[in-house]
């Protein structure tokens, strides 16, 4: 598998920042109907660094390497971004981006703000785009009623980015060897194929550099190889393998390697498995699950013993009837079943 080049997100810094409101788009409404910001706000450096930290978090968690989709004919935003790299005028660029996002988003897309910033990554100029959902919150303010102290509560309906806001749609794009490349986090490409990727595809005009089916295959193969080569305890082997089978056959639409490791792997194997995945090009960010390159196995498990015996069956039944004894108790395999037929 071709390994996507890693960028060090600690080197990300943001410069000028501007935000535009992206309202809910009703049918037939056009971009001319939205009002856009016309000047740059004066922001403290700390606020800029706050945005930068959130963007780093989003991209380390969900950012996948992307490039411009060659199948799209005359994609709008890549052209605008290319122009921006030549002449970085943030206000006019961000206005074009906001109008384009407004038109690209589907009726079900939630309203929010589009934050756009000029950025630097690994010393290279870049542009950052973040779709920030609107949130609600309450503020407690100390007050007095009838001379007695209490707290007044105000509902804040126009909050956008709080400590707990999840920024799902974000992009960081830069130029490498003359071509636009970057990292994009887009939850919709990962969770619902029906409205797949208006942010990644329609808005940004990009595609994933490494296809999800390639990543899924690499994840499965790397974990299996790790189990067979590095895990010595029989119980651990079976437990990890069962968890891998369950991960692949579950209804979840994405694979999140650190989440898998955290939930199913013992402390001593966590770091080494993560390193092995990274070495084999499987990112630490979550990616869309796509089993199309894996042979259709259903939900079957197959154990090969030292003595050359193969035990195979449906994963659920194997879990129920095949007992793998702890190595502390002498190890070994016990099958709780009866022979129906011999061949």
């Amino acid at each position, binding site marked *: 598998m071709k390994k996507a080049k890693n960028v060090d997100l600690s080197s990300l810094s943001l410069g000028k920042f501007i935000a535009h409101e992206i309202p809910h788009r009703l049918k037939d409404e056009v971009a001319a109907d939205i009002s856009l910001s016309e000047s740059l706000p004066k922001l403290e450096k700390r606020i800029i*660094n706050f945005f930068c*930290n959130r963007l780093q978090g989003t991209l*380390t968690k969900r950012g996948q390497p992307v490039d411009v989709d060659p199948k799209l004919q005359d994609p709008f935003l890549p052209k605008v971004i290319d122009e921006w790299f030549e002449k970085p005028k943030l206000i006019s660029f961000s206005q074009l981006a906001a109008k384009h996002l407004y038109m690209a988003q589907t009726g079900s897309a939630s309203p929010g703000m589009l934050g756009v910033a000029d950025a630097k990554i690994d010393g290279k100029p870049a542009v950052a785009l973040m779709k920030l959902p609107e949130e609600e919150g309450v503020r407690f303010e100390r007050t007095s009623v009838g001379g007695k102290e209490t707290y007044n509560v105000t509902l804040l309906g126009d909050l956008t980015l709080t400590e707990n806001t999840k920024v799902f749609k974000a992009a960081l794009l830069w130029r490498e060897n003359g071509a636009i490349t970057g990292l994009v986090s887009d939850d919709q490409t990962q969770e619902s194929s029906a409205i797949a990727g208006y942010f990644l595809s329609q808005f940004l005009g990009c595609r994933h550099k490494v296809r999800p089916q390639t990543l899924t295959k690499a994840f499965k193969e790397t974990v299996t190889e790790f189990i067979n080569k590095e895990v010595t305890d029989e119980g651990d082997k079976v437990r990890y393998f069962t968890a891998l089978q369950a991960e692949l056959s579950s209804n979840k639409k994405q694979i999140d390697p*650190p989440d898998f490791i955290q939930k199913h792997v013992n402390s001593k194997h966590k*770091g080494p498995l993560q390193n092995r995945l990274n070495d084999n090009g499987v990112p630490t960010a979550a990616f869309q699950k796509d089993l199309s390159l894996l042979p259709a196995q259903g939900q079957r498990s197959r154990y090969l013993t030292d003595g050359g015996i193969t035990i195979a069956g449906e994963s659920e039944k194997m879990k129920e009837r095949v007992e793998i004894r702890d190595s502390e108790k002498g190890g070994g395999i016990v099958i709780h079943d009866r022979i129906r037929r011999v061949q």
Partner: protein
Amino acid sequence: MSNDEELRQKYLAMRPRLEELAKDLKKSLMVWCNELRIYSPRIEERVKESHSLLNKILQRKLERRPYADPLADVSDKVGVRADVIYGSDIDRLVDRIHRATDVFERIEDDDIDDKRFSLSANEVGYSGVHIDVVPRERRGLARKHTTCEIQIRTNAQAAWAMASHELAYKPVVKRTDGDKRRVFRLTALLELFDEQISQSRDELMSDPNYPLGKLIQALRDARFQFRAGESNPALTHDMVSRLADVQSLKDVDELVDNVSKFTHEYDRKLRDVLTRDYPSLLSQPEAILIFMNLESDIYNSQELWERAGLPNGLLEKMANAWGKRLPPPL
């Protein structure tokens, strides 16, 4: 050509190789001091000047006990001196040299002259330990010519050695009783100095807060390489005491070394990240310890963080700043 002149020419011919031997010896001592974590040693090497060698040979002739083979018998042609702070460092370094069978030929007890114990009660002096060694790597010289002398002293002993050239060593004039008494008092004072400084160190190191304090100091010093300004010392103490693994604090010197290695290896990245003002923890010295942990094993780091009862969100912001994906909470 006279015998002495012939000797001088021979000595000058072998001197460049003796200088190489001296450098080898100095390098070995530096490695061992580092290995034994001997703090701030001063190590100097020298090869005897030809006039000094000839003087020594002449002196022995005048004393009617001449050297049979002068170039071989003068054992301090190459000398290396290590001055250390604590008396116990001398013992540890002597022990290390004694065990260095890969570097030196077998060292007999007779080869070690511990001058700290060899003076009688009424003798004046305050010296360290001298060891005669024969290196296995001889730089092309004959074995008999390669005996080298290693001197190990405390700084107080070094101070005495320098002063004693004038005050007591081989006096050319007869000293009065008053002078002698002054010199005795002086050596007693130096001995007391070494004893007290060693005792203070032992007490300090047995204090349960010592390892934590040493680590905090190293982190504070490291922070100043990357940003100036105030930090919150109470917060640092609280965070470091929660995050520094009890096991790793047992060898705090290694941990302090790791801080230094880490800041060296990630110098550029730390310069970039630590100068930011969000999250606030970046302004604290403990940010370096947090990044060390994240870099070493992010899963362990998170377990440690949770065991310490610290909020996960804070570690997540630090991981974001370091460009690392923090796994979901346990």
